[in-house]
């Protein structure tokens, strides 16, 4: 019941002059019920990778298994629609997919497409809206009347209403202010921990990777460059330099201090611990 890529490759506009290989022989195993970050430079294949998870893109080569569904390149896939209800994919700037007159109708749109009755869909809609932290008074409002952050919440609720087991988010905090971003990431963490959903987040923000995710997948030029736990990933800063990744502030401070005579432990990501270690060293020195 996990996500398994087996030598998956993907070529855009195959057999045309615009042919472009975006993924090369991807082998990847994503564990269930974990929160995994997918990082990498723009154009490294992150979006292409995640669009395979709900079969929006079908592999040009190799095969992949998502939950009980198996998709093999060049073979006619069946039951793709069912897969889409199990894997909720939230695109960048999802507020642009809202289109109904009321939030209730928009939230019911997904469940109904997957065959829910009106009553069921409404139940799911109300539940999803609560999950994203909005109360029922919003149900009859127009989605266009909301603020930017609220619109995005409603759009995500529209996916959650489908009750997916796996939630995939493509840069969900783009364009939000820092506080809005933190609230958004906390929401996904809650969905991961309280509701046992497998969460995949495509992001550029290393603070979010460090503070919210369990594992990290690094993509580079259409391949998996690294796949490790977050704690392991931020230990070795020379490796991060190589990838042109600016480490989270706490890692930066630790690194700067260690370069100038401190001996702080490299697996410490907690502000309290780090500060007490610094204080100890300063006082010990005196």
């Amino acid at each position, binding site marked *: 019941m996990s996500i398994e890529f087996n030598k998956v490759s993907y070529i855009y506009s195959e057999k*045309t002059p615009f042919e472009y290989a975006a993924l090369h022989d991807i082998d990847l195993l994503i564990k269930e019920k974990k929160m995994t970050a997918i990082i990498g430079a723009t154009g490294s294949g992150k979006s292409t990778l995640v*669009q395979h998870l*709900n079969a*929006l893109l079908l592999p040009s080569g190799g095969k992949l298994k998502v939950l009980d569904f198996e998709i093999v390149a060049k073979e006619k896939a069946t039951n793709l*629609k069912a897969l*889409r*209800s199990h894997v*909720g*994919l*939230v*695109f960048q700037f*999802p507020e*642009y*997919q*809202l*289109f109904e007159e009321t939030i209730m109708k928009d939230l019911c*749109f*997904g469940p109904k*497409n*997957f065959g829910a009755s009106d009553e069921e869909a409404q139940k799911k809609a109300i539940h999803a809206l609560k999950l994203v932290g909005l109360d029922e008074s919003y149900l009859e409002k127009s989605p*266009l009347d909301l603020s930017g952050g609220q619109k995005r919440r409603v759009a995500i609720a*529209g*996916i959650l209403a*489908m009750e997916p087991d796996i939630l995939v988010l493509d840069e969900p905090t783009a364009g939000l202010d820092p506080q809005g971003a933190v609230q958004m990431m906390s929401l996904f963490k809650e969905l991961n921990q309280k509701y046992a959903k497998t969460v995949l987040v495509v992001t550029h923000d290393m603070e979010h990777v460090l503070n919210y995710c369990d594992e990290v997948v690094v993509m580079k030029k259409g391949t998996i460059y690294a796949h490790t736990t977050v704690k392991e990933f931020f230990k070795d800063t020379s490796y991060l330099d190589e990838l042109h990744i600016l480490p989270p502030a706490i890692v930066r401070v630790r690194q700067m201090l260690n370069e100038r005579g401190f001996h702080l432990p490299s697996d410490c990501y907690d502000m309290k611990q780090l500060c007490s270690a610094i204080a100890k060293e300063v006082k010990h020195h005196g």
Partner: protein
Amino acid sequence: MGNFVLGKYLPYDSIIHKMDPRAKILAMLLVLISIFIPAGYLGYAILAVVIVTTVLTAKLSLKFVWKSMKPMLFMLCFLLVVNIFAVKTGDVLIAFGNFEIYSDAVFNTIYIAVRLMLMIMVTTCLTATTKPLDLTLGIEDLLKPFKKVGVPAHEIAMMISIALRFIPTLIEETERIMKAQASRGVDLQEGKLKEKIMAILSLIVPLFVSAFQRAEDLANAMEARGYAPGQRRTRYKQLRFHFRDYMLLVCSAGLVAAVAVLALVL
């Protein structure tokens, strides 16, 4: 989209590609006029030779030109059917009992087909060898004399060039929204009529919302950079007539004259 070739620009390197868009537009108009002069089979033979030569000079393959004519085939078949029923002059070619097909019906259709094919070939010569934006510049310059009678040449050109600039952006956007809605279970291929209408709405509404947002942003950016419609401004891209452009015009005018004379003689 990929198969639709009518009006598509092909970036080859030929003398026709290098010509001034204004000269090409005027030449096209002249040749179109000559196509409408009834100069019999000889006239059309001359025109066909000239036009095919132009197509080949522009390094366009005849296959490409044929492809751009394909959409017209259906129309021509329809026309033939209409003519068979409507035209009852000339000789009887075939008779099925009471129903007779007359020669004029067939000849009329061929006559129209030939004219239409030549017209498409001429326009293809223009659009396939001229970047859409250069075409816009050409139209703007040619419309300039009509400014006095109220034709907003510059504004028209600005609108066309902005539309051209945003077509790829909007196509990208459309694909993205389609994928986003597909993730919510939208199926554009299957489903009942009501579901299909919903599917289309789920695409169109977001597309419009975002297009309006873009339009507002763009208007702000243009205004902030000093643009005001109707205000005098200079133009970076200047078109220049070369010897080859004059030659093109002289030849095209000559063609019209030749066909006209031929028509009078006949």
